[in-house]
């Protein structure tokens, strides 16, 4: 029953009733993130002003893990300066890879509910899709500019 723990209430709630899964007409950065092997496909939409993420949302399809993870991420990064958001992304991706410290996982707050996915190699890509797309947006903002 070990992987019942990763379909916990935090995950199923964010999957069923996401807070940030909607269009964002005034987004100025939009990027698609895809996992070709499983078909997870999202568009991450951010409104960034003076280096701060003032609003964000996502649309798309995918498994519960990919959708919940993106939703949790947006709940944490909206309102943050870009660098702090990227720091969280780095912590999250390392948590899933199993190399984050307990303090870093603490920092991840609600996203820490996904830590057990590190034991399911096939699902790692699903969990990091939103976070990885966030990193890509800021790596080359010109590509994501609307």
């Amino acid at each position, binding site marked *: *029953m070990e992987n019942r723990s990763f379909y916990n209430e935090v995950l199923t709630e964010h999957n069923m009733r996401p807070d940030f899964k909607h269009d964002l007409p005034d987004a100025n950065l939009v990027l698609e993130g895809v996992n070709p092997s499983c078909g997870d496909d999202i568009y991450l939409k951010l409104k960034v002003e003076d280096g701060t993420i003032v609003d964000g949302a996502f649309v798309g399809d995918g*498994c519960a*893990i990919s959708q919940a993870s993106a939703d949790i991420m947006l709940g944490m990064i909206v309102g943050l300066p870009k660098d702090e958001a990227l720091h969280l992304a780095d912590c999250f991706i390392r948590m899933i890879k199993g190399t984050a410290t307990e303090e870093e996982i603490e920092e991840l707050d609600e996203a820490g509910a996904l830590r057990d996915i590190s034991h*399911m190699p*096939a*699902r790692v890509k699903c969990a990091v899709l939103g976070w990885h797309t966030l990193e890509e947006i800021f790596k080359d903002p010109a590509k994501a500019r609307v």
Partner: protein
Amino acid sequence: MLDLRNDFPILRGTDVVYLDSAATAQRPACVIEAERVFNDTHNANPLRGLYAWSMEATDAYEHARQTVADFVGAKHAEEIVFTRNTTEGLNLIAYTWAMANLKPGDEVLVTVMEHHSNLLPWQLACERTGATLRFLECTRDGLFPEEAMRAAVTERTRLVCMGHVSNVYGRVNPVERMAELAHSVGALMVCDAAQSAPHIPLDVQKLGVDFLVFSGHKLCGPMGIGALWARLELLEAMPPFLRGGEMIEYVTRERATWAEVPHKFEAGTVNAAGAVGLEAAIHYLQAAGLDAVEAHVNALTDRALKAMQAMPHIHVIGSDRAEEHSGILTFTVDDVHPHDIAAILDSDKVCIRAGHHCAQPLMKHLGVGSTARASIYLYNNTEDVDRFLDSLSSLRSRMGYGE
């Protein structure tokens, strides 16, 4: 009902429910034993050595070829080429017959429900030769209406490629009729028997096809061994596939002449132990009786299908009759992604497949991103089916959804 579970070492004393046989079947002890005997008593490089072990290895390998020839209804053992698997067999046809014979303006017809292995080689052959790839569409339920088949074959058609049984629907396709239509315009017919070979008797004469390929591992044989059948004249006229050892007659600095069929197509050291294991698997299936296997699989499929049809939010793809599924039940669950279905079932130790099943054009045709698939074979029993159904029935609530 068959009771063969004990023949399979991996299934003895385990509480794992294995319902992914359409991906690969489990192996009975006799197959593992046949490979062991080969390795322990006469392992040597077949076809070359002039000493006892090598001659015994050659005999064992060629004996396996005869068994495969009989299994598919071939007239001559030489019509069987051993390959690694179905994919390699289809690539062999694409790289040899197709690339040597197709020209710009020619058409290759494939069906939209093919596994990628019966699509990508034809995409490549068309790209290299300038031929055009055309598609035969199926209905949502996986049927090919006669008019659609007739309309798809034109005087430019040179090759028609169809799976005997789809790995998504499990339905037996009208290969015999398609072969007639192909031949009426002078085209050749390729039959991918990967999913049919484990379930129904094959007879290449009755099917009327020109090429037939299958894999050993889906019919309880080892991985890494499969076979291609084609008529002798056709194989003789085809150029070789891979070049190197054991496939030549004479070699000079500049050129070479080829060994006789089938060795022309078996370059390099062959998988002799695998061939011997495949032979044992064929004998095992024949001893169980393909009719008895079919009846067993259909009875279990019926139990699963009826229960799934009665469950809310579950949708099975394809026929509503169990005997038209070859043990393959592809399905979706409302609001639950197939990867989540597979993960939850895995937590109950029920193994199923989830994803696009290497049939992305079909998934697009059906308007689904991916699906889940449970597949039943001769070692499964009613307890397996009931554990699967139990797990399935609690799935939505475990994902947080109400009834």
